[in-house]
């Protein structure tokens, strides 16, 4: 078993998702079965194969290095759950 209680807690913490005990158990089961299933990739010989990260065959185009006005701060803040004097507001971080 690749994923145990400790591992799921660690991944959940890295993902910033709180899990209750029932969920943890379900995900331990799901993730183990998915990881067992993807294990079949080990049958494939990938020696000297370049990883494919960008399928796009076109070359990245350059653009002019000029500044542009896009969103205003008002627009950016429009959907914020909490804001204060032109800033996003979050719970107190510094004691």
């Amino acid at each position, binding site marked *: 078993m690749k994923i145990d209680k400790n591992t799921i807690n660690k991944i959940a913490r890295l993902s910033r*998702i709180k899990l209750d005990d029932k*969920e943890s158990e379900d995900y331990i089961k799901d993730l183990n079965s*998915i990881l067992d299933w993807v294990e079949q990739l080990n049958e494939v010989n990938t020696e000297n194969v370049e990883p494919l990260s960008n*399928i796009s065959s076109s070359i990245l185009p350059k653009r002019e290095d000029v500044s542009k006005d896009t*969103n205003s701060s008002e627009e950016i803040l429009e959907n*914020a759950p909490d804001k204060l004097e032109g800033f996003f507001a979050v*719970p107190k971080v510094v004691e």
Partner: protein
Amino acid sequence: MSKSSLKQTLKDLETKKISIRELNQDYLKRIKEKDNLNVFIHFNEDNVLKQIDNLEKDNSVKKLKGIPIAIKDLFCTKSMPTTAASKILENFNPTYESFVTQKLLDEGSIFVGKTNLDEFAMGSATNTSFFGNTINPLSKENEPLAPGGSSGGSAAAVAADLCLGATGTDTGGSIRQPASFCGVVGIKPTYGLCSRWGIAAFASSLDQAGIFSHNVEDASILLQSIAGFDQRDSTSAKVNIPNYFENLDDDLNGKTVGIPKEYSIDGTPMEISQIWEDAIKVLEKKGVKIKNISLPHTKYALPTYYIIAPAEASSNLARYDGVKYGFRSDEIDSLDEMYENTRAQGFGREVKRRILIGTYVLSAGYYDAYYLKAQKVRKLIADDFNKAFKECDFIVTPTAPSAAFPLNEKQNDPIKMYLNDVFTVPASLAGLPGISIPFGKDKNNLPLGIQILGKHFDEQQVFNAAVSLERSYE
């Protein structure tokens, strides 16, 4: 099946046989009648009427003027909220317009509403949406069927004739599979043909916008409208967009079709093997050379996809933190608590599952074994296609391993659910264009789809083969 056609409607509008208002009122009426299908996450009649008013005052000539289009609720739209079918974006009102929807607005189309989908496009049945299931319009009474997914709302909107075309996105089959389930045409173009700008990201190296329509001609018209280079998407391609519709040619004489033997999978229903054979026979009669090809790494496409897509999703969905937009939990004693509770309460089960798996395969010590390995296998899968396309002009396969399944069919086993995408995922990994067209029915009279794949940016060949098969079937 509906006989609506965008091409015919454009003619009727031009010759004033029908007005923009009459046309759209007809569609509004049907949308309200079909409310039980839960096709739309957002529908507001006043908004549609306002768009009609504005177009009536507009004297300019526009290619899609007055045409009712449904938009998958993954595209950011200024005039309507955008949710990605997630609680975490429940009250999100974009302050900008996606590239694709802007193109459709520039052409004068009318947005009838935002369609339902699997949450963040993660699913194959439109059953992971925070806003409930969409029902396949082809369902019999008391036997609701799934419309497929993730773009199930858009496919259903076309099938129920609630619009003349709809946008979708396809990461591993999310346009082609629901098109097959709902008996409509769905095209996923080459990766890079349509800008991803303003589409809520799922797996950026795979996500691609596309079109649902009533027939192949309509798809060719609409795809041309949404394609094009955009410098705000770094993977957007600078290629010439031909006039697909004007260039449509159903004469396939002398062309070669590739039939990949690896797509004959144990357990595929007879009827699906049968329509595949029927399609090949039709092509043969049209003078197409049949070439048996091999795509040897096909069986590894799904496990490859289910490493790469969740990995990219775990990174893309990090932005939903309850700070900038969308839902924020009430339980926020500290910043970390705020993040963890917001994401725990804001995301649904399948999305969390994929974030967790993606985080795992990218985490220290596992990156090489999973993510890098998957990217290498992805290269082999893409190479398979490159080799095959040296011997053929296009490839024909079934679209999905089944017809539409019952809505309440228990899909507790994630791997079983993932198998829905077995025929669509390989082309997604290779970035190739693919279309699904209705071609035959199963014993319950449900539509089955045939998939046509083409070379990179050879959408024209895909459309030509599709229109040829479509015309022979009608």
